[in-house]
């Protein structure tokens, strides 16, 4: 029997919201989730708020208390969470565990971020990291993996580009995605070079946005027809052992393995997957870690169209980070919302027919050629 369930979701379209604050966006997403679940503020026992960059960009801290009071939630525990790109999914992991431990019956998880600010530049891990001082950027960390994967397994620039093309085809069908114009492999490869081998269309764009979900105990969920079960919520941290093999993240494999074990499923049981496609190579590496194909064959999997909507393993039918944009703290929550929407059979034109089991994968941070955090959430109808 599942330990917790999702009973409400809400998000605002990701994109440029120059006139809106993080608090304003977060409050609207929260409001929408409360309405979706039919929950009133006094029923919420605890809240987690995820954000990664407001401290650096705006000098903000403890924004969660502001967000939740906008929708009339006070007095209950509020916890602010930062885990880089996995901030939102880490907040979800905490909410799940709080309910599984019997410490709460109804917990809100909200992620919000504002990244369209002038001169943000390319994102790095922070000035105190020696690697940042030696020129490491988040994009370069993924590029070094791509070059090595291409060298060892013959993954091609065209296969990388096909990830972007596929996710944009999906994004066309998602009203919450920021970029919805179709693109071709040629357009992807001919867009400006950012960090070799990634052209602009292979790098997830920035975004402003907010997303919210409500997690509750099974006893509440069983009375609600649109509840979605949480079968596993896993968080793994990097090993940082040296040397690291850059053709995969050991942390990715560990997290996927633990999630399958906890949920009692395997890759063949998955109907729909959202994964952290921050750069095209990342999605290919995640196919392999998730066991959708053998190690080294991720490029061929996307080339054969198997991860397209209608294929054997539909991946990032929301459009992924590549089409939706990446408001860092909100992304992990938005991925969960996509899976919940699919399992509720409410995804409209991008609905995976008969989806019963879905998985949301997220990853955040870079340290010593490893990821800092990897989360896997398994959900079922």
């Amino acid at each position, binding site marked *: 029997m599942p330990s917790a369930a999702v009973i409400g979701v809400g998000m605002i379209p990701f994109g440029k919201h120059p006139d809106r604050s993080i608090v304003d966006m977060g409050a609207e997403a929260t409001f929408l989730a409360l309405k979706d679940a039919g929950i009133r503020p006094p029923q919420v026992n605890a809240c987690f708020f995820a954000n990664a960059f407001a401290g650096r960009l705006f000098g903000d801290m403890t924004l969660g208390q502001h967000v939740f009071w906008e929708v009339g939630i006070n007095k209950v525990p509020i916890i602010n969470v930062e885990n880089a790109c996995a901030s939102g999914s880490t907040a979800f992991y905490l909410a799940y565990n709080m309910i599984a431990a019997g410490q709460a019956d109804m917990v809100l998880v909200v992620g919000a971020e504002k990244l369209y600010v002038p001169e943000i530049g390319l994102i790095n891990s922070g000035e105190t990291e020696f690697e940042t001082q030696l020129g490491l950027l988040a994009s370069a960390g993924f590029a070094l*993996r791509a070059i*090595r994967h291409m060298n060892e397994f013959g993954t091609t620039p065209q296969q990388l580009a096909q990830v972007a093309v596929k996710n944009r085809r999906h994004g066309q069908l998602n009203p919450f995605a920021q970029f919805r114009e179709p693109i071709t492999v040629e357009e992807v490869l001919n867009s400006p070079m950012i960090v070799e081998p990634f052209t602009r269309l292979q790098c997830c764009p920035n975004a402003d946005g907010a997303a919210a979900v409500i997690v509750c105990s099974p006893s509440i969920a069983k009375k609600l027809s649109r509840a979605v079960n949480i079968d596993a919520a896993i968080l793994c941290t990097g090993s940082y052992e040296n040397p690291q093999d850059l053709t995969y993240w050991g942390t990715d494999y560990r997290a996927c393995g633990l999630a399958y074990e906890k949920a009692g499923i395997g890759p063949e049981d998955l109907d729909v997957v959202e994964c952290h496609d921050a750069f095209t190579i990342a999605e290919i590496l995640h196919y392999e870690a998730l066991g959708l194909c053998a190690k080294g064959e991720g490029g061929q999997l996307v080339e054969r169209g198997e991860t397209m909507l209608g294929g054997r393993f539909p991946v990032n039918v929301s459009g992924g980070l590549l089409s939706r944009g990446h408001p860092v703290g909100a992304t992990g929550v938005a991925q969960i919302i996509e899976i919940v929407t699919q399992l509720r059979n409410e995804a409209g034109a991008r609905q995976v027919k008969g989806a019963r089991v879905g998985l949301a994968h997220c990853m955040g941070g870079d340290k010593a050629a490893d990821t800092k955090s990897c989360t896997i959430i398994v959900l079922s109808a």
Partner: protein
Amino acid sequence: METVLNIPPVVSGIFTLPPYDQIQPKLLGGVCPTCNRYYFPRPRYCKGCLGQTEEISLGSKGVIYSFTVIRRKSPLGLPEPYSVGYVDLEESGLRVFSLLDSRAIAQLRIGLKVRLVVEPLGHDGHGAPRLRPYFTPITVG
């Protein structure tokens, strides 16, 4: 006049400081005398036994494991374009992140033998020059 000698290192303790005269600059790391485990950079404690690590030279030679070229606006006053990569160090077997020679981008490939150079390169984020280490191809002959 500003010379290499009075430009501070971008991070202290990760490479030997000038003057080098005829001696190669070397990367500095840490080793645990109990576990014989190598680290770069040198940590305060050994991750295995929590004993104190000792500073150790990691030499100046290695082989490129992977590399990339950053073609957008460079951070920290680095050259445009510039290159970074992972280098497998010859002596310790550590795989370390490093800048690569931005004047040798056309030569860079996986498996290329490289050696360490330390020069004024870029700034500290506020415009003050800094010494940075980078690996350059070992020229044959």
